[in-house]
């Protein structure tokens, strides 16, 4: 038996994650994402290859099930296309929060498609709804029997609300597909958590294959220190962020700090943020970190004490304050964060934080790339940037240490890396092979890897054989008991005995272990003994004389 792995996306690349694994004849598709920097059909995985590989005529027959790990577009974006356009009608699994967040994400992406006027590969809003109707929600550690042989189970992965790692097993062959995960917890999400499983294959993401990050605590401290300095100097802090996730984390951090410092300085949330966070986080409290779960009954941690709604008129208010605003990258085209930025950037007392990633062309990107003090908005207007800039470095992906830790913890027989850049993956592959001694692959898109899988054979042993082993053992023990009244303990760990026997595999019969005696009987033969007569050569003696 073997596991066949066809990488349709995210092979030596980040984007359109999609892996089809064939385990003992069952095909499972993990993730079904789009590539955010491509357009049209090319942004989707090449689904036709599945048919080519399986020889089936339609996807429903070829694929046993589709499992989506989390709600980011590069993991879920192509799903409506696959089900509604390509016509897959089999089961689709994802976790509850992913199912809840998916419509919003997919609808956002559909708007982009419409904006960019894709010629092909579009799907409609109805497609999204129809697709999500077919989804079967999963809970953590819930074992689902997809069909007679195939079993899947989800484990907590951190990363984003509802992210999961998927364990799949057919017969004795087992594998784990991680999706994106985070091994270090943050303020609102826990760390990835999985049992020690016996695996033939682990498919893991490798976004930060070479980076080792220092403690998140240090980053928190730097952030707080920057905010503290600015606010105590009477300045205003602008924190442009995307809607769900990071905003909640930073807000919890600040709220906590405010509480300890006993400050009354206002923290503002621009309108859209609170509504989204409250609906999703209050609903899905079970998927957040331990601390939140612990305190949830006493106080919903997403009801921030020091946070207020921001109103447009507050922009010119005097005195220090902190403001969270969307969108994250401060784009030229508009958005609330840009509006505030225009007003606050010219004062050197103020502080602007930048998220870890800013798209090229955005103001955030310009601020990040260098000390640009003058930003041209259009021909006539420009902004003099004199405020301080602080770069946030909180990432929801695990670093290379975390990847290695997970691989080591699971100790699979084989490792496949996906979702990363080729040179970095090559580096990590070397490490995995040299340090952990596991064969490691990082196939490119549309390549497939085949690895051998475990098959356990049931076998029985004859009574004779067991008795003989047992009695040998007893004798041995008795002998030892007499010996070790004194001191020598060293061999206590090593006195495991090998049993000697003959493995008999007959056609159409169960495998058996026998004693040598029995073999003679089974084969119906007589025992022969071979004797050697030593021959002493007399010639050597003669030569000596």
């Amino acid at each position, binding site marked *: 038996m073997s596991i066949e792995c066809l990488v349709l996306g995210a092979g030596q690349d980040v984007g359109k994650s999609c892996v089809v694994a064939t385990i003992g004849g069952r095909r499972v598709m993990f993730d079904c994402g789009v590539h955010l920097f491509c357009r049209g059909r090319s942004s989707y995985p090449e689904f036709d290859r599945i048919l080519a590989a399986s020889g089936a005529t339609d996807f429903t027959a070829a694929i046993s099930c589709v499992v989506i790990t989390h709600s980011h577009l590069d993991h879920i974006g192509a799903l409506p296309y696959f089900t509604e356009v390509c016509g897959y009608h089999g089961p689709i699994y994802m976790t509850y929060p992913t199912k809840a967040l998916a419509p919003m994400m997919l609808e956002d992406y559909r708007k982009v498609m419409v904006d960019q006027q894709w010629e092909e590969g579009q799907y409609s809003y109805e497609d999204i709804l129809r697709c999500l109707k077919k989804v079967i929600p999963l809970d953590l550690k819930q074992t689902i029997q997809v069909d007679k042989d195939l079993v899947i189970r989800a484990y907590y992965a951190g990363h984003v609300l509802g992210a999961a790692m998927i364990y799949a097993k057919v017969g004795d062959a087992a594998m784990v597909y991680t999706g994106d995960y985070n091994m270090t*917890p943050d303020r609102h999400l826990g760390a990835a958590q999985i049992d020690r499983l016996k695996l033939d294959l682990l498919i893991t993401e490798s976004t930060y294959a070479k980076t*080792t990050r220092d403690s998140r605590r240090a980053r928190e401290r730097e952030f707080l220190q920057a905010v503290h300095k600015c606010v105590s100097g009477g300045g205003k802090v602008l924190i442009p962020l995307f809607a769900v996730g990071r905003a909640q984390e930073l807000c919890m951090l600040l709220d906590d700090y405010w*509480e300890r410092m*006993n400050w009354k300085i206002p923290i503002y949330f621009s309108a859209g943020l609170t509504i989204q966070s409250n609906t999703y986080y209050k609903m899905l409290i079970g998927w957040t970190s331990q601390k939140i779960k612990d305190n949830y009954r006493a106080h919903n941690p997403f009801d921030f004490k020091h946070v207020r709604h921001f109103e447009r008129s507050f922009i010119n208010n005097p005195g220090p304050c902190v403001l969270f605003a969307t969108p994250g990258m401060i784009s030229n085209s508009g958005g609330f964060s840009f509006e505030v930025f225009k007003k606050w950037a010219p004062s050197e007392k103020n502080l602007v934080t930048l998220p870890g990633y800013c798209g090229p062309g955005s103001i955030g990107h310009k601020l990040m790339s260098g000390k640009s003090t003058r930003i041209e908005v259009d021909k006539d207007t420009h902004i003099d940037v004199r405020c301080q800039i602080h770069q946030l470095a909180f990432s929801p992906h695990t670093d290379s240490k975390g990847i290695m830790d997970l691989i080591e913890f699971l100790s699979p027989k084989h490792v496949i890396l996906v979702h990363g850049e080729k040179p970095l993956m090559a580096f990590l592959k070397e490490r995995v092979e040299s340090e*952990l001694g596991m064969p490691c692959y990082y196939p490119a898109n549309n390549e497939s890897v085949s690895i051998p899988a475990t098959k356990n054979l*049931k076998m029985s042993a004859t009574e004779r054989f067991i008795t003989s082993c047992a009695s040998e053992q007893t004798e041995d023990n008795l002998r030892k008991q007499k010996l070790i009244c004194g001191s020598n303990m060293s061999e206590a760990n090593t006195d495991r005995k090998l049993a000697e026997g003959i493995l008999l595999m007959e056609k159409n019969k169960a495998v058996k272990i026998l004693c040598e005696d029995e073999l003679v009987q089974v084969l119906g033969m007589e025992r022969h003994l071979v004797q050697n007569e030593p021959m002493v050569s007399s010639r050597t003696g003669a030569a000596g004389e």
Partner: protein
Amino acid sequence: MSNTKQPISNRLRSLPVASGGGLPSKTPTRRSPLPAGEAPPLPLLHQALHPPNPMGDPHLLSSAHPAAAAASARKHPGPIDERFSDPSPHITKRPRVAADAAATVGSAPYPEEEVRSLVIMAGGIYPLARAEALRGLAAVLEKAGTGCCDGAGIVECCYGCAVELMRDEDEGVRLAVVRLVGLCAQKFAARMDVDAKSDGDIMDLIFQQLSSMARDMCTKVRIEAFGALGKMQRVSDGVLLQSLSKKVIKTDTMSGTIIKGQKLPPKLKIPCAAGIFAHGIEDEFYQVRTAACTSLGALAKFSSQYAEKALDLLMDMMNDDTETVRLQTLQALFHMATYGYLSMQEKHMHMFLGLLVDANALIRNAARKILGLVNLPKLQMFKSAIDCLIASLEKNPEEQDIYGILFSIGKNHGSFSANIAKHLAKEIATASDGELILDRPRVKALIIVSISAPFSDDKHKKLDIPSIIFSHAISLLGKVSCALGEEVNQDSLLSYLCHKGGMPLWGNRSVSVEFGESESCKVETVEVGEQIENTAKATKCLDRVLVMQSVESILQTVEGAWTMRMSCDVCEARTILRTCKEELKVLAENSSGSIGAFLSFLCEYLDAIRLVVELWQLIQLDNSYTVGLTAPDILLEKLNISVRRMECCYAGLNRGLEVQVMELALLANLLGLSNIGACSKAVLSKLVWIINRLEGLCADGSCELSDFSREIKKTFEADHIGSALIRNIHTSVELFRLKPTTDFGALKAISGVLQVCDNNSENPQSYICGLPVGVSFNISLWNISSNHRLWLHMSIGESVQHTFLDFSSFEGDGEVKSGSMVVPLNTTPMAHSFVLRVCLIMECYGGISSNQERHGGPSDCVVQLSDELDVYFVSTGQR
């Protein structure tokens, strides 16, 4: 070659068939000697055939189930049936058997047997049984002493077994593994103490193994692993530093993966320790973070370089969202500060000073305590700390202990506070009347900081504090004395301030002089005392290492005092000895166990030394020998009692300590000789006995016979009457060197507490004149063994009654025994009332006693075990 059915020749080996075929017939007879704790051999076989499957495949398990195998065997009756029907109940009970074994460890004569069977069980297929077996091993290990050689083998065996199960699929097993490995590490460390082998490799290996367990997915395992890491000792610097940084540090020492010629398993080749604490402090569960913080602080005492980096991590923890974690972090920092490993840097100040104005009073308090101990390298940092304390004081005026902290900060940074004082003096001078209001917390605080400077440690610098500060401080007397703590009398403080402030002295002159003197006397001890008391107050239970540090410095002072005696400065030597003893007493009160026993032993020792010093002075002053009970006689008797107490009231004196006591006994007897001026037979025989004992102790070369004893032995051998001894007494005594050892092993103090039920001077017990009366006592005895002979010493005026104490019926373990008993007082005086004085005494068995048995009473060589107790009696007619 020939084909035959029968083997012809014994010389020739046939196929190894015979060994398998011949045995089964023998088995039934061999069945019986299987001990209850012994694992039946069956599961082992199954283990070999079917390695445990994580998925718990039902088919596999059922086929491997020994009971099933046995059942199938029963279907085929035959000679083997009997063999099989027996072990099956055994197997099903296995978890319980392991637990039983663990519980009955104490009584087992052969721990090796137990370990062997538990190790075999640990290899079983059922995870609960495996975990239970590991717990059993831990129990055996805890009971087994490290001293004996077979104990050592057990540790190795347990460790090996634990390492094998480190990657077990079951969380419970892994948890038990961590506990066992942690325990093994402690045993290894303890053994290395004995061996004095600096073989840290194994400790490094264990540290790495525990580190890899600290990345486990199970929270409980992580908590346990971090706890165990904190208890590690003798870990090399490289590994410690690696544990703080996720990035692998490439050094030559790190590549040492070959331990004792045995290659590490491949899993451990990657530095598992990398950044383990960085992971620990950002864990999702606060329990893990707390454990990680504690361990971070605990390990700091082994390496200053590590401590510096650990501080960075701990400082980051101040932003934690759980209060428990923050408090624990502060506790860890405090721990580091008490060991002197906390060097605050400028980058930490922002975070740390924030804590001083934290909304939580507990946090503020803990942060302040640390600040009182820490060393700030820069004036700027010092000033900002002071400013922050002042701000905190203004915010929370009820927290008066801030003054105390200000004082100790000032004291720790003498030159900085002198600087503050200079500025303050200028401020005071330039301020016109009424502008500088002393009520303002800032000025109060600054004055306290300023006057703390003269108490600072950097004496080499001349710190002149303007006298105007002292005169202002007078009005803050209450605050100042509060800041100084209770040990300084307010009057003497006032006169000191007046004196320093250049005021006309208002009190009697002597007070000020006394304070000046006591200040100089204090200098010796304050250094030690101040630090200890600060920490003692805060922690109550003193850390062993810390205590030993201060004990060592006290003993150095004592040795200095002894040499001072040589220069005839007896008075000062006495004062120093007294203060040192007081210091030790403070420490002893706060310690327990063998270290407490050692401290009280040292107190006794210092007492004896002081007596020797005093006696020697008397003898030197007055060489004419007088008759009758003179002061030297009293001192000598006291000295003898003191020596006897040291000899008899401590169980488990090790060789070094015993030599120390014996030399003191030798000295005491020598002084006795010189006092009497002639040699009595008893004294001489005592001397002989002591010298023999000393020689016996030093026979194996573990300690050396000192010059002093060797000299006495020489003179004694030359002249058996001892006249030469008396002649040479001066030179001999000069040879005596004070070499107090600090190695005390498992010392135990023997003591007793005697209480009388329901009796005091207000509520006396009634009696009828002339008739016996029963007195009921509650008695608690510490570290008394059955071969000690205890008596109750009861005295009414001159008449004494001894009653033998039979404590065999007392309840309690080896350490404490207690019970109550009614003791008859045989005769009562013909009086209206009387007071009975009772105490517990113990007979000394040993050569020094003259062994003259009195009638029914104890031998004359006794030591008092408990304090004397007064029992009040009143005649029935008087009530």
